[in-house]
């Protein structure tokens, strides 16, 4: 980890085929510790597939994934989460029939109980304190006892991000967190992402260019399974290739 540029994540020739479709084609990608990187690209570009391989939700067809210098290509998703790679789904994914409190407490419990004995015992006091802190942070303290599935859409999204943040990840992958949110909710989530970024590396997939330009210092553009450009927001905005893809020329 003492390398000059301190790369937290790297993929080498990472590929995924779904039958005849090459959703991700031999992607070489590097992410530095502390970055807030955005990945953009048109629908079907392979963004979700790419980050799903990083989180372990999808097995690559070929290629390698290296996290903090360790080859994690074969590692199970739950172990990667335990290592600090945490993914939030493009489609909101929470425990709809459980209360908001129970949702968050499941995430906090996972972090507190990482020992072997931990599955039978956790410090309930500590658990409660931490859950409360998270609820406060995502602004859902008053909704703690409410069933998660009955929350308004925007609050469900906040809860979903709250679950990720309760795990205290090293690398947080957010897959289109702004999708379906109202303007004021977007501001709220943006504020949260900025705050989260102070402590950790974030990989953000986002269609909303305004959000991307405001948050990210570096942008990666994907199209048809490949990275077609990478650079600062200014560089990307001026990139002919990117304009072609986005304007459909």
């Amino acid at each position, binding site marked *: 980890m003492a390398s000059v540029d301190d790369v937290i994540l790297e993929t080498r020739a990472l590929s995924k085929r779904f039958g005849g479709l090459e959703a991700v084609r031999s992607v070489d990608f590097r992410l530095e510790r502390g970055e807030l990187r955005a990945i953009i690209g048109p629908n079907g570009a392979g963004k979700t597939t790419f980050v799903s391989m990083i*989180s372990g*939700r999808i097995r690559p067809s070929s290629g390698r994934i290296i996290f903090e210098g360790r080859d994690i290509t074969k590692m*199970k*998703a*739950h*172990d990667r*989460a*335990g290592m600090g790679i*945490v*993914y939030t*789904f493009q489609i909101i*994914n*929470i*425990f*709809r*029939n*459980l209360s908001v*409190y*129970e949702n968050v*407490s*499941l*995430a906090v*419990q*996972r972090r507190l*109980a990482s020992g072997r004995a*931990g*599955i*039978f*015992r*956790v410090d*309930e006091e500590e658990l*409660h304190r931490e859950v409360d802190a998270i609820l406060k942070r995502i602004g859902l303290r008053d909704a703690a*006892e409410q069933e998660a599935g009955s929350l308004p859409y925007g609050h469900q999204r906040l809860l979903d991000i709250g*679950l990720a943040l309760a*795990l205290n990840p090293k690398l947080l992958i957010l897959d289109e967190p702004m999708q379906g949110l109202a303007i004021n909710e977007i501001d709220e989530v943006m504020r949260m992402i900025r705050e989260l970024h102070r402590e950790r590396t974030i990989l953000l997939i986002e269609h909303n260019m305004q959000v991307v330009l405001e948050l990210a210092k570096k942008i990666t553009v994907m199209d048809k399974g490949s990275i077609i450009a990478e650079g600062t927001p200014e560089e990307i905005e001026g990139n002919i290739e990117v304009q072609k893809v986005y304007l459909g020329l």
Partner: protein
Amino acid sequence: MHAANKGFGKVLAVHIGVIAGFFILQFIVPPFHAAMLTRIMVLATYAIGYNILLGYTGLMSLGHAMFFATGLYAAGLSVIYYGLPPLEALLLAILLSAVMSAAMGAITLRTSGVFFLIVTMIFSQVFFLTTLYFNVITGGEEGLVLTRYLKPISLGLFSVELTDSAVKYNFALIIFAIAFLFSLWLTRSPVGRVLVAIRENEERAEMLGYNIYKYKLLAFTMSGTISGMAGAAYALAFAYIGSALASILYSINPLLWTLLGGAGTTIGPIIGTGLMIYIIDFTSGITTSYLIVVGVTLMLLVLAFPPGIVGAIRRRWLRWLP
């Protein structure tokens, strides 16, 4: 304090109350009903074990007769052939059920959904056929009676006989209480919360970092072990072992009892078991086609109360019930 802890006094009171209720009933009800209740407590223990997998983990097995019968035969055969005293036979049976269910879980949990249903059923049928095949030892379909092999249970200064109906009753009550309180503990423990998370949304639970397979295996083993304990209690309390108790009917029974009473509730399996056993007893006195009556009653109840009796009660009135 958070709501999870607020109502616990009430919850504990209800559970202790159920156990106390069974204890007191033996002094009130006539012998016929005491015998019925003995049977209900043993079989409710089986349903409680089954419910850990179905109700709290969301896995439907059609092969639990295998574990019930593992306990049944382990206890029965060790009493008959090795002259083990009842409590030693019970402990041996619990141990073997744990091993058996852990091994079976390790295999069957590689499948899911309807495949899980089928695979568990197939293994259980193999077990059933094995008990028939070795009928020289097991007594096959006809079964074996333990009565003259059953040694007294020694309790320090004095000893009691399992052939005594009051001893039977309280033996069943203790077994039942152990399983019942265990299931209550489980629902409130960190493990239990993860099991519910798996039932509710397996994918999310995995992405939170939980090893789903490990937790399911744990649930499967706990479930199979309690089922085996119930089987052993059955052999010891009713002094009988026979392969009918390993048949598919005994895999379907705990499923029906649990659904009727309310899967995913601690008390539901008891209500479901009690009700079904009384309904069967009642209808078999009137008509020979009692199984049809049972089936229809059950369908109506499950249609009217999809979450089961206790599940419906919880939904409408007692939200704090575990």
